[in-house]
């Protein structure tokens, strides 16, 4: 058993300035094939078609960091000029990946801290008007580092909550059920059985008795199909093997409008409703229609008309003991709040402002869910400690030989939500900002952490909303691919198409212009990186293929791609940066053992620029989710 005081220090002080629905992914040229809709824009007016409805919107706000930018422009050091650069824009770009401003690329690594992958259980204390959970927790062993989805529910029917997780790396998404053994120990979920594979095709999983047979069914949303098709997999009664093997029941399309989905009995009829937060920040309640065999949710009422956009996690449970579910929210600072049930009146079931605190410091958690783990009838809180929650900066020492990044300094904790971290100068202040993707929030939310210029403390403490829907990309890169001196975002989607969001330099609005197609057929690339290899002022693309070959695709050149000799199979990370001080970017690759190798640029612009014998860039990075130059 591991017990500790909950971390209350907020590593990243969050100042959410933007609640706008930013155009994270504008319509593809032609708006062609079916794909997740990044930002739902269609209004559905009736449940008759089986589609969830979205009654209205909230007014959007703007992102304004002009003050920051103006300040930064007067204080930031001059960037290192790029050799041979011919720029369209007047403002030169900073040296890529140079966090410390010394002209050399630093390393930013996202690594796991203590308890990564563990479940922390905060037992319920019975309070109904104040924090209902104890401030200390009991941590399980770190067994669930692999899991990207955590649900607790009584799957086995023994009135004890079990753990349901998905392992995205096993057979395209294997679902596991960990039955609660009733031991009351620190790890009441010691064993497991599989509950099917291939679950990566869905992006939302809920568990509850929908068909009314007393057994929990599984709800799954396929975001690619018809703007989000919801299927209910009826429970087959098994408590020792996959209980969801029966044919799924189609339960409506268009569910992608739900940024968050919950399942609970809102109407008090014993049948669960779906509660969804839409893109306007409203809570929509889809009453269960009583069906036991077909689409269960065919109408809609407002649970609350808005104000919920700031929550980055939502769940439901009857904390107040009034027989109706309350809403449990986590705000961007990591604080939990209980929003008690208000009334059955449409639009007034819960209030975003009528709430009481339920603890702070939960930003470390990938998931915060509730259930009666201890069997005392009170809801307990289960927090899934994210892996790679710690961010580290490894400054470049400019050492001529050996590892240039021997030391590290903290860049904050609580980064476990981030499925990917990028470095880029978003606001044009010549300082490297952090872009962090939370793929579990609103189909992929991008957060922009502006660099505050600190040289001694944390640099990335304030974040801004960078839009939702970024999950349409399975790989994101930052770099100047337009040659205008501004950092662009480049994403690859599942079809292998790449789109660039050119940086527009705006400090008052979404900092990227609508996307433009920049490439295709990249589905065979296992790693991609941007850097100005040919030193023409525009970032080129470095591509590691699934056959182990490595290529440079010079941007704007009419020549064929440059093949980099060697077998690069096994490469786990790929980065480009001015590590050694050479004229072009050096290549930094990470292997499966966690070691980094630096291939110094040899000056070639049309042939292999990384022909030299590599030098070490350090070790121990095997667990890093993001390793950024």
């Amino acid at each position, binding site marked *: 058993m591991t017990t500790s005081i909950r971390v209350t220090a907020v590593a990243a002080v969050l100042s959410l300035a933007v609640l706008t629905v930013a155009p994270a992914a504008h319509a593809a040229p032609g708006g062609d094939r079916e794909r997740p809709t990044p930002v739902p824009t269609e209004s559905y007016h009736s449940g008759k078609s089986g589609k969830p409805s979205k009654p209205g919107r909230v007014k959007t706000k703007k992102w304004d960091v002009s003050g920051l930018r103006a300040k930064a422009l007067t204080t930031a050091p001059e960037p290192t000029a790029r050799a041979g650069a011919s720029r369209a824009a007047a403002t030169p770009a900073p040296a890529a990946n140079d966090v410390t401003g010394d002209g050399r690329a630093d390393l930013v690594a996202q690594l796991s801290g203590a308890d990564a992958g563990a479940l922390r259980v905060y037992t319920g204390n019975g309070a109904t008007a104040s924090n209902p959970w104890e401030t200390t927790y009991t941590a399980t062993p770190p067994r669930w580092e692999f899991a990207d989805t955590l649900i607790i529910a009584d799957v086995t029917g023994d009135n004890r909550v079990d753990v349901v997780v998905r392992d995205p790396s096993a057979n395209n998404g294997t679902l596991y059920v960990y039955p609660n053994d009733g031991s009351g120990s620190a790890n009441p979920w010691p064993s497991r059985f599989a509950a099917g594979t291939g679950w990566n095709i869905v992006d939302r999983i809920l568990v509850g008795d929908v068909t009314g047979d007393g057994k929990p069914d599984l709800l799954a949303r396929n975001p690619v199909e018809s703007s989000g098709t919801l299927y209910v997999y009826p429970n087959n009664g098994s408590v020792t093997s996959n209980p969801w093997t029966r044919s799924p029941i189609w339960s409506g399309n268009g569910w992608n409008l739900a940024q968050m989905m919950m399942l609970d009995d809102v109407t008090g009829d014993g049948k669960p409703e779906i509660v969804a937060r839409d893109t306007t920040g409203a809570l929509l309640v889809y009453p269960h229609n009583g069906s036991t065999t077909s689409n269960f949710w065919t109408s809609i009422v407002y649970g609350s008309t808005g104000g919920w956009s700031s929550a980055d996690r939502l769940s439901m449970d009857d904390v107040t003991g009034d027989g109706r579910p309350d809403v449990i929210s986590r705000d961007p600072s990591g604080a939990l709040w209980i929003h008690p049930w208000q009334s059955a009146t449409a639009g007034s079931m819960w209030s975003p402002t009528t709430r009481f605190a339920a603890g702070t410091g939960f930003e470390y958690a990938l998931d915060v869910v509730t259930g009666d783990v201890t069997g005392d009838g009170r809801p307990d809180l289960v927090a899934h400690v994210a892996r790679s929650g710690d961010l580290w900066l490894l400054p470049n020492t400019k050492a001529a030989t050996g590892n240039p990044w021997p030391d590290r300094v903290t860049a904050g904790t609580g980064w476990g939500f981030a499925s990917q971290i990028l470095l880029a100068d978003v606001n044009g202040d010549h300082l490297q900002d952090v872009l962090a993707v939370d793929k579990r929030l609103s189909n992929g939310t991008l957060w922009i952490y502006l660099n505050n210029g600190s040289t001694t403390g944390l640099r990335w403490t304030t974040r801004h909303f960078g839009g939702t829907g970024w999950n349409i990309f399975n790989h994101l890169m930052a770099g100047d691919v337009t040659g205008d001196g501004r950092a662009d975002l*480049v994403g690859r989607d599942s079809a292998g198409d790449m789109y660039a969001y050119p940086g527009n330099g705006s400090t008052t609005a979404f900092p990227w212009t609508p996307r433009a197609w920049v490439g295709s*057929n990249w589905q065979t690339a296992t790693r991609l990186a941007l850097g100005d290899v040919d030193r023409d002022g525009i970032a080129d693309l470095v591509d590691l293929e699934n056959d182990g070959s490595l290529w440079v695709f010079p941007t704007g050149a009419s020549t064929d791609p440059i093949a980099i000799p060697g077998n690069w199979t096994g490469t786990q990370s790929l980065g480009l940066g001015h590590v050694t001080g050479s004229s072009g970017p050096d290549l930094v690759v990470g292997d499966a053992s966690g070691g980094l190798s630096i291939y110094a640029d040899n000056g070639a612009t049309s042939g292999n620029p990384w022909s030299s014998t590599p030098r070490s860039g350090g070790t121990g990075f095997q667990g890093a989710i993001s390793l950024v130059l």
Partner: protein
Amino acid sequence: MLQMTGGAVVAGGALAATTPLTGPPAAHADTFVPTPLAATDPEPNVERSKHWWPAQRNVWTPVGWKGHLFRFNVVYNGALICDPSWVLAAKPNTQPWHGKNFQTTVVMPMRGGGFRPFPTFQYEVWDDDLGQGKQGWEEDSDAPVLWTEHRRQEGLVIKQSVFAHVPGEQTVQTATEPIYSWTRFEVTHVDPVSAVKDFVFQLWLSGSYMKPAGPYQDEDGVPLTVFPGTAPILAGLTMGRVWNPTGKPITVPITDNEGNVKVMVTTADKGSIAMTENKVKGVYDLRLGLPATVGAYVDVLIPMIPAPLADAKAEAALGRDAALAKCQAFWKENAASIAVVDTPENYVNQVVRRGPQLAQVVAEKSPDTGLFTFLSGSYAYDVLWSTPTSMVSHMFMDRLGYHDVVENHIEIYAATQGTRTPPGSVFAGGTYPGYLSTPKTLQAIDWISDHGAILEILSVHALLTNRPAFIAKWTDVIVKACDYIVQACGLTNHGGVQGLMPPGHSTDEGVETQGFISQCFTYKGLTSAVEFLQRIKHPRAAEFATFANTFRTTFVQAVRDLADRSAKWTDAKGRQWPVFRPQFAGEGVWDAFTMLDTGALMSVWAGLMPASDPMMKSFVEFFRVGPNTLVFDAVHHNALDRAVLDHEQSSAEPCYSWNMFHTWQLGERAPFIEGLYGLLTGGLSQDTYISSEHRNAIYGNLFSHPIITWSLLHAVIDDSLVPNQLQLLRLCPLEWLSGKKQTRFEKVPTKFGPVTLRFKLEGGRDRDDDRSGHDTLKVEFSGDWHHKPGRVIVETPPLPGLKWIVVNGNRYRAGRRIEL
């Protein structure tokens, strides 16, 4: 149906009811039910006649290079079919490429996004889109550039244009030189109110899967049918990774499993490209994006045979515009003998302009023989039926002065003469040194009529050109061909009419008959040969002339005998007339339509029967108003149904509208003009001028061009009506009389030599419109005689208010026959 009431000259009296049928004016009539022309209707023209039928379905049009073994075919919907060896009959010289086909299909986005799935079951292509598109030729280009328009509700219009290019731009030598199609998709219009910013469409890349297939049920003859099973490219296609943040046009190859280029795309400026495999394995979705800006375009280069990367890159590097520019000289006709036809109707002019180009594309220099030949079609009938295809020479290309082309394409017949046996059991075991036939390597189905048809080619060419070299080379061939006719007609070991061409395969029916078509082509060729031999005072001319007279006498008697034993139909006056079967002996399979297309009406064209013969007149009327018309369903019929004349056009195969020679001979102006325009707009695609074999099916051929060309030329310059006499303006459509534009027929070949005729309305009141108010027709006429006609007659077009005709400065009162 015109009841012989509207013509200025109604010779012989009308057999049918003369009360004009009332109906809406032709210009307003239309669509699915044939609407007879009323007596009060204005004379037809192109625009009016376009409304006589729904637009044809299933059109495909070849795009290629003169004489090349391979042709691209563009379907009405923009699909491009590259099939080097798809034929409805085996042709050995393309067998090495059999199955190596390719197709691109234009797939536009669906409302709401996404693209329709690739078909997985067999159905007819027109089920998707009613079978009609909007196409045309780029008129400012001598090289044939075929465009297809895609009007999109996204707020823009995409114009797809296709042309073929053979690097070097020379006449083919091997005929298998690399040939590329260049296709451009260009934004030509953007809605000013609402339009997308960017537009993405798709090309399906597949094997050819749209193929002609004929159920012959209801309205379907041989439509294009989707055969999904032929679509997959089993060996796969590959497109490399594309990285193009600059958005500048880049060239992207798509290669086959051997690394050869199937497709080379030059992307649009700020465009996009991606390729993924369709859910149907072996079919690929090539996604092409371009800004919705007028002038934005993407180019798609496709070699007929997958090209080595270096070759394809070189062609792509040339660029579409440069390639097209290089093509212009190749396609610009410079031969001095080629006629000029320039009427106030641009449609007519374009038919005359593009038709010969198409004829030279639907042709090949056979690699196995090194000889050129016309073919019967493209993507159907890519072989040679000499009988129908002969008309491309003697009624079409030679009549427009393409004499070199004709000479070049008929060499095969000299090489083949006497090498084969005629297609009839009566000929078995014999030797026929004079027999003219299709070379075995090009053969589809030989017909007995082939010999006469080929002889007609040779004789007419000699008569029209009077070229000494040709005459010197071919006279013996012609004489031997006449000998063959005498020999064949002398065979007695058959049950047909003795003294005529014996029974054999008259058509594709697979049975032996003694068909009208065999006799008519035989006699036509023979009499043209006699005319030629008489002209050169050949010692055997009289002998063959005598034989021809005997033949005709025998034929006429056979017709009368056949009439006696034929079923009868009753006209409006209660008189009974024979319904001629299309053969004198044997049993046909398709009599229901061949009685029109290959039957007794041919006798007038051949010169075997006068059009004024009551049996001929009655038989034309039979097809106009007879009992077939009561079971004719204009919407649901096909080429095998009982034939009728629909706007003077055969409802079976328009090219066999032999009634045109009746109305021409009789001077029945109204039905002749109706037929002329009917064929122009009903026998051809109104968009690309390619001919169909029968309406809505089997395109890619020139079948209807000969009768159209012959008729439109003879309407103004007629060297055929009366021996040794030239008739001018006899059946000239009123639409060609203009006060604004001089109508020009220049260097039109005749048996007397090239004739130039220009005319324009002048004088009278000053009116804005073309015709009314003018009282004078100014005519310029000249002839470059090699055999001066005995008489030259100028007829007066029946234009109201026309008082004077001024010919070469001499004023004549209109309405009188003018002899120059």
